[in-house]
Structure formats: C-alpha cells, structure tokens
C-alpha cells in the first residue's frame, strides 16, 4: 500500500512541477519529495522481507541500495537546486520544472525498482528510467544534447527489447515445469524444474539488455554519452543509482543461475563481459580529453570490477555489493564537483584546465580525495572492496584474469591520474581569462566531503547492521 501511496505522491509532485512556474514552489515540492523519499526508505527498512502489493519485496539487497539512494539523493537534489540557481540563472521556468520532475521520477523509479520481486515489474521501471533520463539529457536543448539523447534512447530501446526477449525465454523455461508465477521467489523455489536451455538463452538476453544500464560491454556506450551530455547532478544520478539498477537486475537473475548446473557457464559470460569492460575503459582513459567522459569511463571500470567479483564467488560477492555501495557514494562526489570546475574554466576539455588549487582550494582537495577514492588507493573506502575482489579472484584460481586486470587498472590509474594532476597542478592555460573567474564558496564542496568521508567510514568501520544486510544479500547466491 505504501508503495502505491509513494508512487501517487511522486506522480502528483511531478505533475505539479511541470505545470507550476513559480520557483519557490518548485523548490518546496522538491524538498517535500526529499522527505517523502526518506520516509519511504525508513518504512521499507523497518518492513524488511515482507511482500507488498504482491510484486514487491524489500529484501536486503534492495534495502541496502534504497538506503544508499536516499543518502545521496539529498546532496544531489540540493546541488541540482544550486545548479539551477547559481550556475544557470537563465533557465526558463518550463525547463526547470521539467528538469526537477525528471529527477524526481528517476529517483523514485530506481528506488521502487530495487524492491521489485518480479522481473517484469523491474522491466517496467527500467523503461520509466529511460524516459526520465532522456528528459534530463536533453536539458540543454542544443544539437549535441540531441545527439546524446538520440543515441541513449535508441540503445536503451534495443536493450529493453533484449530484456523482454529474455523474459519470454524465462517464461518458456518455466513452462515446462508448469509454473505460472514468474516472481523471483517462486523461481527460487523451483530450481530443479527449470528447462536449462531456455534459461541459458534468457540469461544471455537479460544480461545483454541490462548492460546498457549497468555500463558493461556491449551496451555501455549509451551510458557514457548520457553522462557526458546530462547536467552534472543528473549525471551523478545516472552514474550511481541507474548503474545500481542494472546491477540489481543482473544480480537477481544470476542468483537463479547459481543454483542450476549452468553456474560456471554464467560465470564465464560475466567474466568475459567484465574483462572487456575494464579493457575498454583502460583504452579510453589513456586518450580521453573530456573530463565528464573520463568520470563515466571510470564508472565502467568499477562496474567491470564488481562483475568480476560477482563471478569469482566466495568473498567476492560480499566485496561486489560493498563496492557498489561505496561507488554510489564516491562517484556523485566527482560529478557534483564538476559543476564548479566548469564554472571556473567554462570548458570540458582537459586542455583548457589547470592550476585548480589557485581558484578553488576546497574543490581541488575534493578532486584529489575523489581521485584517490576512485582509483581505490588507501585510505579510500573502495580500497577495501577492491582488495577483497582481488582476493576472491585469487582464491578462485583466476590468476591470469587477476594479472590482466591489475595491468589494466595500472593503465587506468595512469590515464586518470595524468588528467587529474593536470587539472590540479599544472599551470593554467594562457588562453584563459583570469580576471573573469568567479569566486566559489567553500561550502559548495561540503556535501562532497561528507560523501567521501561516508565512503571511508562504511569501509573501515561499518555498522554491524550494514554488514549483516550485505551478508543476507550474499545468501541469495549461495
């Protein structure tokens, strides 16, 4: 019931955001949505593992991701307010309303989709996220944004079709057992009766479809273009909660596969895709010139590592879930800081930036710390999860893959690092007009510090409840 109430509330807020032109009411509505979201998260946390509305069940993985979503939505909504208010003061009321409505819809669709117990319901909400994300990408309404949104919509449409075909094959594999109910619970209860051939095909199609959201080979290009063209707060959302949605979809289907004899085959498929993703990310990182795309490719690398941990098994699954949650905290920090970088340099290219320390000390330290986090160097939180992933790869005797990944990660650190150090330390380009650079208040970077600190805290001193939830989620696979 509460889900219906939440969704109706969200739709009402979206409607009023679109039709209402008054700035103050818009911000009020967004704040109202923020509180609604927190209330929803708290409610679901208290009602863990209860079936709601016969299609939704907040199991531990869903709750973890939902709480992470709630936690980062607040700074992201705040920064989107700052984005509209300070960095783009010439927004029309209509585009502002659309922007906020799309953000609200995206956040709620992702949040509710984490909880779904039925693959078709996840699929419907993935469609909704495509719709809202495309509105966000098209926000600037120029030809480059149009190009980005067209590519995004097209690839996502094809991926959605693939997921649908996978659902059809899944139903075929259930048909033999005579099961009508396609929810994950009922599939889990009937492991031995599934037709393996159709299950194989269905996993292949569903996996390929979800890689568009998750950001793996072969459909990662949609996500990269999207994060490049969308405004930075929207890019932060796309890079964190949308990728988590892809992860949830694949995780639940993979959980079905682990109990069947197809476990090793599914592992092989995932390892191939993940290794190729890390490879692609390494190739692009070394020659990238656009700062936002660099952040996007770093996200792809992290997702590749997560999938490797998932396929490696053992402690890798725990590490994968931990890594995804920490990534959800760290990546938005990068994207939110990007607004200030753009405000200072008025350019996305790496050739036009330099000496960031002089213009925005607090922001530069954020970039430094976020770089340390994103490349998983200690003392960042991601170090713990990546180390555990490598440990699990070693324990599962995937030595060659481990060595390859380490070499590729070195390349990525080099690429990422050379760009970030150019941004921070090298002298600013001579073509820049130094007198026109605005003052940026240090408080703009405050939320990013909080996010990075939360990542460190969650990794090194996790609350007991947090660890229990992750272990509970891991049990789905065992």
């Amino acid at each position, binding site marked *: 019931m509460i889900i219906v109430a939440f969704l109706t509330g969200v739709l009402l807020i979206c409607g009023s955001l679109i039709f209402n032109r008054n700035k103050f009411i818009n911000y009020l509505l967004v704040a109202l949505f923020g509180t609604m979201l927190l209330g929803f998260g708290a409610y679901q946390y208290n009602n863990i593992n209860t079936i709601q509305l016969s299609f939704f069940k907040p199991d531990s993985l869903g709750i973890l991701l939902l709480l992470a979503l709630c936690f980062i939505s607040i700074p992201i909504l705040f920064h989107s307010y700052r984005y509209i208010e300070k960095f783009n003061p010439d927004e029309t009321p209509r585009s502002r309303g659309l922007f906020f409505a799309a953000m609200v819809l995206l956040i709620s669709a992702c949040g509710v989709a984490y909880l779904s117990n039925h693959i078709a319901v996840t699929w419907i909400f993935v469609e909704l996220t495509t719709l809202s994300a*495309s509105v966000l990408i098209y926000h600037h309404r120029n030809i480059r944004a*149009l190009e980005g949104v067209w590519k995004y919509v097209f690839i996502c449409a094809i991926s959605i079709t693939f997921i649908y075909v996978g659902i059809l094959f899944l139903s075929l594999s259930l*048909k033999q057992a005579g099961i009508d109910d396609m929810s994950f619970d009922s599939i889990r209860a009937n492991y031995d009766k599934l037709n393996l051939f159709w299950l194989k095909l269905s996993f292949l199609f569903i996996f390929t479809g979800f890689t568009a959201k998750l950001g793996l080979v072969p459909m990662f290009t949609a996500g990269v273009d999207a994060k490049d063209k969308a405004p930075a707060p929207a890019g932060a959302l796309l890079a964190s909660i949308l990728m988590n949605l892809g992860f949830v979809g694949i995780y639940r289907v993979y959980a079905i596969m682990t109990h069947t004899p197809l476990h090793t085959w599914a592992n092989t498929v995932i390892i191939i895709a993940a290794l190729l993703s890390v490879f692609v990310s390494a190739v692009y990182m070394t020659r990238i010139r656009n700062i936002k795309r660099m952040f996007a490719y770093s996200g792809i690398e992290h997702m590749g590592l997560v999938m490797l941990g998932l396929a490696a098994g053992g402690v890798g699954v725990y590490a994968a879930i931990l890594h995804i949650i920490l990534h959800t905290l760290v990546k938005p920090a990068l994207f939110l800081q990007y607004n200030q970088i753009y405000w200072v340099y008025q350019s996305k290219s790496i050739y036009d930036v330099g000496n960031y320390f002089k213009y925005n000390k607090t922001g530069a330290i954020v970039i430094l710390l976020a770089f340390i986090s994103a490349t998983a160097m200690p003392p960042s939180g991601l170090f713990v999860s990546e180390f555990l992933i490598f440990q699990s790869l070693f324990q599962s005797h995937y030595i060659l893959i481990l060595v390859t990944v380490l070499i590729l990660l070195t390349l990525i650190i080099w690429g990422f690092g050379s760009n970030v150090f150019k941004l921070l330390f090298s002298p600013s380009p001579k073509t820049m007009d130094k007198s026109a650079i605005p003052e940026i208040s240090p408080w703009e970077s405050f939320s990013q510090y909080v996010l990075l600190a939360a990542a460190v805290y969650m990794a090194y001193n996790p609350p007991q409840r947090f660890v229990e939830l992750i272990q509970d989620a891991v049990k789905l696979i065992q």
Partner: protein
Amino acid sequence: MIDILLIALAMTLLYMSIANRLHTYLRILVFQGFILFGATYLTLTNVNTVNLLLIMLETIVFKSIAVPWFMSYIIKRNKISRAAEPYLPYFVSLLIVTIIIVLAIILSSSIKDANLDKTYFVVALSTMFTGLYLIVSRKKIITHVIGYLVIENGVFVLSLAVGNEMPMLVNLGIMLDIFASVLILGIFFNKIGDVIKNPDVDLLNNLRD
C-alpha cells in the same frame, strides 16, 4: 493457417531487404501489421475476449495505421529524400537476409524442446535479426527507426508463442511497442528533424572521444 501467415511475414522480410524507397518500407510495415493481426486472432485462443480485443486493436491501430502514418508525416515534414541509402548493395542485402532465414531454420531445428512451436521461433528470430541488420546497414536515421519497428514485430511473434499460457507477457510486449514508438518517434525524431536537415548517421558522429 497460422503457418501461412508466418511464412508470409518471412517473405516480407525478403522484400524489405531489396526495397528501394522509404515508402516501400512503410507499406511493408503496414502489411506486417495486418499479418500480425491475423496471427494474434488465430493463436491466442485461450485469452479472454476483452484482452484479446485489446491486443488485436493495438496491432491494427498501432502497427498498421498510427506508426506508418506518423513516419510518412515525418518524412514529408523533414523533406527526407526518398531513397534508402544502404552501405551494401541490395543484392548483398538479399543474400544476407536469405542466409539469416536459413540460419534461423537450422538453429531452431536443433532445439529438441517439444514445447515450442518451431514456426514461431524461426520467424521471430529471422525477423529480429533482419531488423538488426537493417539498422546496421543503412545510412539514414529513419531506417534505423524502421529497423527497430521490425525488431519489435519479431518480438511480438515470439510473445505470441508463449501468449496462450501467460497473456500478461503479450500485454507487456504491447506496452514496449507503445512506449518505444512514442518515445523514439514522437518526441525525438521531430526534434532531430528540426535541427538537422536530411539526417544521416554521419551527422551523429560529433559525440565521440
């Protein structure tokens, strides 16, 4: 009787591979919509009448009337030139589509499952891959959209194969159709036409590293 309709659908794919003008593509799409209409009526005998009427209405209204009309409106409005520009000559396209159909036949004859009606599987698979091929081998953006619609028709045939047991899946497929058509065609193609004249895929190459 249903086999005849499905084989006719496979024949329209062959015709589509050598079609020269964009209007021919649209006419083939209309014809495919009618075929799917008949196929739905003949296949879904276990579904209750209201649901069946809804599905059939959707096939006729959407696939045969609304979408082709809208696409011809877009073609006229954006003054897109009438020829479809392929990267490969038409003869090679025909060969490739024929090979796709043969491969689909071979593939599905190697499936030992008795649960699935093989004709559906062959036709659905060949339609999906032909649609994918159309997307890859044509220059214009509007033929990409047409290729996507062909893929959707193939997915619809596949959903008919399981539709008797789980009619909800057929409804989901229709939702996919409507969603994708509205989103891709309605919102964005209009905008692309406004901004880019005579859209080629080459113009979409600005967004790269």
